[in-house]
């Protein structure tokens, strides 16, 4: 079997998303072939998850001031910053035959296998974690999402961090901290991974793209043939971009699920523990664990990653934290961490207005 391979760079936010959605819809109705698309966005774009509230996730004045396009993905998950150093991965499948029988779990496993295999070709050992992350040593290196179109077509979205400008990200995307300090930036940098960081080399985007393409070919046992969009696809993309992705009705839509945030501090034998959480209804969207304790950053990043898009029920939180084998009891005991996270979620109720408002003038 042969799939079409599409590549592109410097893509606008709306058009990039419109291409993926049209291909998924067309694949579902049998008009477009199964396609793997590996592309980068223009510098830069901020993309929120399907149901997120843009104003809660993105610092809009900063984006406007710096020409950063903001849009909404059809797939779920959290807000991301994309640009020349983040590889967008879109796989569209018809969702018929055998694929129709695969359930969400199997679909995500198969999709992530393509990325894991591709990263393996670069010498990076990544694994699937939680709802939609690929991690290396506990640190997130890629975000994943699945969308099933009404035609039955399936769209798998991935964003692979080839490199990451942590400072820019912290000024574009909101975090549950009052101020973005150098210490905070350093913590985020230590808890996030990227291809170049892991390899310690300046591998090119082209090399990464080639390896990821090869990984999907191996994982799905298919050949990949470089191709172009058909004229009919381009027409449909133009229409969808104009009528959906360029409209405030899509980009700025709101959900009825209330967003809240909460915090808790706890003095532990290892030091002060400071936990901030952001919730969508009763679901944890983000957990940020800080403090003056000494613990492996990869282990803390792993806990944060596993609790992303996770139930806030205390028993579920406790079970997940206890499942993080990398957490060293001597540096930070699980019971204290569970207590702090559960307290922070219990305290949640403050609206997102307390979230950080980065200072654009401080940005170089």
């Amino acid at each position: 079997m042969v799939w079409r391979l599409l590549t592109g760079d410097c893509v606008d936010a709306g058009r990039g998303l419109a291409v993926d959605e049209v291909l998924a819809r067309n694949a579902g109705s049998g008009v477009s072939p199964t396609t793997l698309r590996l592309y980068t966005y223009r510098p830069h774009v901020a993309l929120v998850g399907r149901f997120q509230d843009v104003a809660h996730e993105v610092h809009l004045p900063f984006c406007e001031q710096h020409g950063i396009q903001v849009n909404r993905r059809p797939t779920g998950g959290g807000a991301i910053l994309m640009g020349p150093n983040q590889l967008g991965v879109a796989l569209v499948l018809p969702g018929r035959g055998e694929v129709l029988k695969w359930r969400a779990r199997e679909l995500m496993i198969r999709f992530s296998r393509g990325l894991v295999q591709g990263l393996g070709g670069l010498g990076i050992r990544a694994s699937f974690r939680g709802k939609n992350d690929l991690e290396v040593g506990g640190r997130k290196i890629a975000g994943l999402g699945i969308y099933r179109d009404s035609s039955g077509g399936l769209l798998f979205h991935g964003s692979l961090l080839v490199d990451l400008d942590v400072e820019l990200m912290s000024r574009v995307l909101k975090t549950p901290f009052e101020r973005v300090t150098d210490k905070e930036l350093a913590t985020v940098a230590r808890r996030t991974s990227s291809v170049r960081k892991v390899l310690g080399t300046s591998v090119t985007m082209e090399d990464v793209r080639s390896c990821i393409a090869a990984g999907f070919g191996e994982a799905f046992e298919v050949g990949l043939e470089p191709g172009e969009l058909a004229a009919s696809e381009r027409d449909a993309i133009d229409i969808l971009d104009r009528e959906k992705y360029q409209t405030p009705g899509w980009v700025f839509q709101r959900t009825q699920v209330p967003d809240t945030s909460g915090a808790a501090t706890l003095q532990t034998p290892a030091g002060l523990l400071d936990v901030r959480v952001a919730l969508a209804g009763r679901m944890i969207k983000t957990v940020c664990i800080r403090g003056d304790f000494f613990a492996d950053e990869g282990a803390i990043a792993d806990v944060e990653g596993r609790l992303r898009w996770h139930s806030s029920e205390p028993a579920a939180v406790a079970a997940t934290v206890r499942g993080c084998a990398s957490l060293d009891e001597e540096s930070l005991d699980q019971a204290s961490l569970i207590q702090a996270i559960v307290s922070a979620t219990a305290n949640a109720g403050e609206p997102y207005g307390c979230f950080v408002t980065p200072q654009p003038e401080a940005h170089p």
Partner: protein
Amino acid sequence: MGSDPPFNIPHDRHYDRVHHLWAWWDEASRRVRVGIDSIGLESLGELAYVALKEVGTTVLRGESIGTLEAAKMTTIIAAPVSGTVSKCNDAVLQDPLLVNGDPYDGGWLVEIDPANWERDAAELVSGEGIQAWVAAEVERLRTETQAD
């Protein structure tokens, strides 16, 4: 290997084989109440967001009556019957985890005035067919779990 998840599949309603939505025909109101069954929820995971079509929207069987974001994917909610959306469950819009906690009662999604209940019901699983269908679905779920 662990034991099968304790799926609760009430026999008082009909089920969409592929999308795992249930349809309950209320003779008194002559409306069909729609929700997600427990096998579908096992596969989706916990629901973070639900959006439903507005009351008055007309849909064909298989068309979208809404969208949801669950722990494992974002997907449309495919109407198990054709008709007009006559009521949405506001409670699940504000707290989607209600669907996971009480899928057959408080976690219902929409009510539909069916265009032809008898015709669409014939396409769904019900009565004595439920047991064999559930057994096959549980087997498929077990296979997926082993691949995980």
